[in-house]
């Protein structure tokens, strides 16, 4: 799943160096799709007189630690996880942030 080895992560003995990366996956309801939870929170904020709130959408945040040989490799792996399992393309969008080495 990890990206190709680059010069920077090959150790002098020829082994590919694998690091632990912190990856955050944000999943949110697609624009235009009804988000009843976001709407309820929006209404609750208004009833607390936070009138400046114009819209609320509720999604989920997944924090993962994963092993990869590079940041690009970590991102690529997370993207495949999103396409296969973590997000439903009919209802959800996702974006991935690699927060660096653990």
């Amino acid at each position: 799943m990890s990206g190709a080895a680059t010069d920077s992560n090959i150790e002098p003995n020829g082994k590919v160096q694998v690091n632990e990366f912190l990856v955050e996956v944000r999943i949110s309801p697609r624009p235009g799709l009804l988000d009843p939870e976001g709407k309820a929170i929006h209404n609750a904020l208004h009833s607390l007189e936070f009138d400046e709130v114009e819209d609320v959408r509720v999604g989920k945040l997944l924090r993962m630690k994963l092993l990869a040989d590079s940041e690009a490799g970590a991102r690529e792996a997370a993207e495949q996880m999103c396409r296969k399992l973590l997000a439903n393309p009919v209802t959800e969008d996702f974006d991935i942030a690699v927060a660096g080495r653990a």
Partner: protein
Amino acid sequence: MQVAIVTFPGSNCDYDCYKAITDILGEQAHFVWHRESHIDGADLVILPGGFSYGDYLRAGAIARFSPIMASVQDFAVQGGAVLGICNGFQILCEAGLLPGALIRNRSLKFLGQRVRVRVENATTRYTSAYSEGDVLALHIAHGEGGYVADAATLDRLESNGQVVFRYVDRHGQVTDEANPNGSMRNIAGIINEAGNVLGLMPHPERSVEAILGSTDGLGLFASIRDHFAGRPAARVLSAAGGR
């Protein structure tokens, strides 16, 4: 008819289906644990209702990758009859065997109540015992039953007659008030283009005996039984219809 009922961790309508098939219909059924890898000798596979894997991530998202699902997928692609009820419908959508998805009810509430659905297509192997326009009293029990799909998919479903059940009011009219969960176009159940995979949110297996308050779900099981028996379906919806 031999029916395989797939049991996932968290399934809770598997025995209701078993009873409907065996006690009420007098047909054969067996359970298939989700860790098994083969559907053998089944005419019909039922993915029952429940909360497989606690509905974690999204309802049906994890069950869809259970070992048995590869076999169910093959069975469906080869034209085998697959019926998904409630959580089973969610699993079929997650698995891509049916288009669209099911999202949180617009009320945010779990709904356990009686609803009315209208039979929109009585030519399928699951609905031949009904007539088009029949209004059935069935029960729903779900938190994520809002059917969504993009406009092109919805139009295709409509024009192909793939919308099989729609939420309606007591007069059989499609209204927003009769829509319990915010489903687009009041859709309660759809069938795939090939006509062998049906998914619906209401529970027909809970409306098969007078003591349950309605027998309107029986027609679905009778239709598929008669499909395999090769005889025209007997009309089983009573005039009273539990309406």
